């Protein structure tokens, strides 16, 4: 008797901790994902702690140290670990502060595109009919534009600046989410469990967001991870064209653009921002893969 009540108590709603432990178990199966997560967490910490650990202010110019190479190269100085750029700003400090911008752009753009894309896509896939036709046509038109050109036009209309660039990039990326969500919702909608929920009395909103949507997350997570990097790259491209983050903002993309004339003379001014972007993107992609493995019960081994 006591035995059964003990098992019953254990059966009670699994605590948040237990669910987290389960999630971590499946996530840690994937070694790449753990590495990606570690790098990403490190990046976030560095970005948050940038004012504390950066050796110099991001925009401080040292007239006596223009295009100083990294300290392990001939002519390098210990004060500027990764060297300086064409106006004598410390690369390391700028990269650390740039991490804040890049991560911020990625998060905001992805969230904006994801939420609006999921909402529109679910409505289109669930209700079909004229609403679906109208939505897909508009999305097709957006996709038919070269994405950067469209973002450029949008920024030109809204006015240059980081905020407007992020809105423009989110608008350009959102059709991908709409299409993915719509396709996934359409596939899930005719499954028996949805009908069963309907027979049990579930309304449209409940069916859309509680029953169907959780089963569509896997492709959305992967897309979110991929577009996180695209967002950073697009923002950099807009900055390069003078439409995104304005100099002297230490945004990685803008730094790359500013440094392009020194590619041959001073490799470090282009290499380090490029490496920063590469590492960030790679870490996030690996993490996205692991997330999908952990969040999709169909892939779990029981």
């Amino acid at each position, binding site marked *: 008797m006591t035995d059964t009540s003990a098992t*019953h108590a254990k059966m009670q709603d699994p605590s948040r901790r237990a669910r987290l432990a389960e999630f971590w178990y499946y996530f840690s199966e994937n070694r790449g994902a753990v590495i990606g997560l570690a790098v990403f967490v490190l990046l976030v910490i560095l970005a948050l702690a940038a004012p504390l650990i950066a050796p110099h202010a991001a925009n401080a110019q040292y007239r006596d140290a223009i295009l100083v190479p990294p300290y392990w190269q001939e002519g390098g100085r210990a004060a500027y670990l990764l060297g300086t750029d064409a106006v004598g700003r410390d690369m390391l400090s700028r990269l650390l502060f740039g991490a804040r911008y890049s991560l911020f752009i990625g998060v905001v753009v992805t969230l904006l595109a994801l939420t609006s894309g999921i909402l529109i896509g679910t409505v289109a896939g669930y209700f079909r009919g004229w609403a679906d036709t109208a939505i897909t046509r508009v999305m097709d038109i957006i996709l038919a534009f070269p994405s950067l050109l469209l973002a450029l036009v949008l920024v030109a209309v809204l006015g240059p600046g980081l905020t407007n660039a992020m809105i423009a990039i989110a608008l350009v990326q959102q059709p991908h989410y709409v299409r993915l969500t719509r396709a996934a919702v359409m596939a899930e909608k005719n499954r028996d469990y949805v009908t*069963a929920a309907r027979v*049990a009395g*579930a309304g449209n909103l409940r069916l859309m967001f509680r029953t169907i949507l959780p089963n569509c997350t896997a492709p959305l997570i992967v897309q979110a991870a991929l577009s996180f990097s695209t967002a950073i790259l697009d923002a950099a491209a807009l900055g390069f064209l003078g439409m995104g983050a304005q100099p002297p903002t230490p945004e990685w993309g803008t730094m790359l653009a500013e440094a392009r004339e020194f590619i041959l003379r001073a490799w470090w001014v282009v290499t380090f921002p490029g490496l920063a972007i590469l590492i960030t993107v790679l870490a996030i992609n690996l993490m996205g893969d692991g997330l999908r493995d952990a969040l999709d019960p169909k892939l779990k081994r029981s």
Partner: protein
Amino acid sequence: MSETVLETRGIVRDYHLSGGLFGQGRTIHAVKDVSLKVEKGKTLAIVGESGCGKSTLARIITMIDAPTAGELFIDGEKVDITANRLSAEMRRKVQIVFQNPYGSLNPRQKIGDVLMDPLVINSDVPASERRDRAMAMLTKVGLQPEHFNRYPHMFSGGQRQRIAIARALMLNPRLLVLDEPVSALDLSVQAQVLNLLADLQDEFGLTYVFISHDLSVVRYIADDVMVMYFGEAVEYGTRDKVFSDPQHEYTRTLFAATPRADVESIRKRLERRAA
């Protein structure tokens, strides 16, 4: 004395196919003029080949789709889902068990939530009682309490079908529509699930509409039998009447096509082969 739980009069369901840009649209008559009546505690079996409109009829009875014409009565009350929203009370009365146990459970929902969901939607039963009732139903269909927090992919087909039955019963329905509930299961599990269904029928006084193409299953479980052929009910009567004295040509063909496994017929077949 006996009360009629389900009655349909002249149910018709047409599907219109648009022929695309240049083609001509067509109309397919999936169900033609089907009338039936089931009394409380009885089982009506609907038999027919695939594509004959059995499942369409099931969806109409379950109030998922609306019939193109005809009337549907549940517990003597006329139902018309196109005219007005279905009340929760009406929804509760008819539940369905699907053919494919792999598609009928939400892969992201734990079994406990699968069972408690109908209560959350339709009633304001407190959480602790919901849990107790789900637990009780779980043991009633022959599963263990520790299955409560597992996901559907951890179960076999037979167990999933038990879960689907438990979910359908959570709202104390009057009528249970079983859309080929055992045809995706292997034979020994079929027998277990059929026995479970028979026990539950006795216990809750359930009324079944049992859709199948397997005549041996139908003979075992049905009180009345309806044979459908291309959307039409070609034969309708008590089980004994239909099985002993089939009237329609198609019914006779159907019976003739059933393999016989009793000793007598096997012996005959062997003799014929030897000769």
